[in-house]
């Protein structure tokens, strides 16, 4: 009822465009084209932080892979775990970005590096995978999908694409993880972590990894590894998403907020690395 009334409540006055006239700035509209500069004291210095002028004169904007993503194989398939913080230089743009891209119901791609590059090219990969399925009447293998992405990315080598992604899925040969990089690397492996937080994640992952873990333990290990990386790395944080890839496709195991996880882990006693030592209770004063 209200919506019908509101339709006829609108003013029919031609002065409805009054605001536009008042804000119309001739100097701005007809001046030479310009672009936004960062609203800070010294925009040149600010931009210098985010550009890398020396390594490649033709392509100066260099993105650091400010993220933590990881994927590993175990007896029950593959666990993929990522954080969700997006940074632009020293500013956190959002704590809530999706770094796992669902290419199709049985293929996942992770994002590290330039967000636009990753999402665009992984969606393009999804399109090509679908074309393959239609042409060949069978699902594309993870190896072929990663090769497609790798070749696309290699053709742009040196032009400033920035992505470090893992193509993860379950095909005829079983679970597979392929790491594909913007400089053309394509590696097949059982355990990868990509991003600025990856060394921290590797530490936790390598020390507690066991192929025969249960699915629950594996998900918890993935979550824990990203938590530790997000704790130490400034460019990782937000929420921690975990996906489980099984033979029937991937399953989203949801996400946990990093801060909540932090207090939950603080309350737990630290695990003992050798069985016979009593776990230590942590008393954090701050």
């Amino acid at each position, binding site marked *: 009822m209200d919506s019908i009334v509101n339709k006829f409540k609108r003013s029919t006055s031609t002065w409805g465009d009054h605001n536009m006239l008042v804000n119309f700035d001739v100097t701005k509209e007809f001046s030479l084209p310009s672009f936004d500069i960062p609203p800070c004291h010294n925009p040149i210095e600010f931009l210098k932080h985010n550009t890398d002028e020396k390594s490649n004169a033709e392509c100066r904007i260099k993105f650091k892979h400010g993220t933590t993503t990881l994927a590993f194989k175990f007896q029950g398939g593959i666990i993929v775990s990522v954080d969700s913080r997006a940074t632009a230089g020293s500013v956190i743009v959002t704590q809530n970005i999706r770094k796992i891209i669902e290419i199709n119901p049985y293929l996942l791609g992770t994002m590290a590096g330039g967000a636009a590059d990753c999402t665009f090219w992984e969606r393009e990969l999804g399109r090509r995978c679908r074309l393959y399925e239609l042409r060949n009447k069978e699902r594309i293998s993870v190896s072929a999908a990663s090769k497609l992405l*790798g070749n696309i990315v*290699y053709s742009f*080598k*040196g032009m400033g694409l920035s992505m470090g992604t893992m193509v993860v899925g379950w095909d005829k040969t079983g679970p597979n993880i392929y*790491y594909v*990089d913007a*400089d*053309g*690397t*394509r*590696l097949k*492996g059982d355990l*990868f972590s990509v991003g600025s937080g*990856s*060394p921290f994640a*590797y530490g936790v992952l390598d020390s507690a990894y066991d192929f025969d873990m249960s699915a629950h333990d594996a998900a918890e290990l993935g979550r824990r590894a990203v938590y530790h990386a997000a704790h130490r790395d400034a460019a990782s944080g937000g929420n921690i998403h975990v996906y489980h890839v099984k033979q029937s496709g991937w399953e989203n195991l949801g996400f946990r907020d990093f801060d909540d996880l932090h207090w939950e882990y603080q309350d737990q006693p630290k695990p003992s690395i050798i069985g016979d030592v009593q776990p230590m209770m942590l008393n954090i004063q701050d």
Partner: protein
Amino acid sequence: MTGKDFTLTISDTAATRSIIVFKNDEDKSLELNKHVLMLYSGSPGDTLHFAEYIQRNVKLYEIKNGIELTPKATATFTRREMANSVRSRKPYNVNLLIAGYDVTTSLPHLYWIDHLGTNATMPYAAHGYGAFYTLSILDKYHRPDISLDEAKAIAKKCIEELKTRFFTNLTGFKVKVSDKDGIREIEI
């Protein structure tokens, strides 16, 4: 290195990016045909791309003409492709070693090809930082007619030297032999 009737190659197996070792069982070689093995090193994406390109062209030649290319022919072809790439807009930054056994003349061959399009036939060769340590060992101990056991001993000495003096911990090595029976991986 070449021996009496075989060639022996060693490559390290770490795939690294700055301080992280992504993978420590990476095979940095490709079999061009039954008797010719190509080892590659250089920029990450370029290496595999160029190496696969050569491998597939060699295979195409064999399918078209029904004859296996000799090591010398593959090396000449590869050098030509490398020279074309150097003269292009964006050269491949890849160094190669082509090691093979020529079934027509029953002789082993080893070719050192670098990213500028140089092709050198050598009894023993190395690419990369490892060359600084191992070439002198090969200079001292290598003879053209060594047996496989002697070659394995020299290879072991080279690897030990790298483990002692090279500043990064090379996580593993893949040793392969190419002789009249084909290419196989061996343990030393």
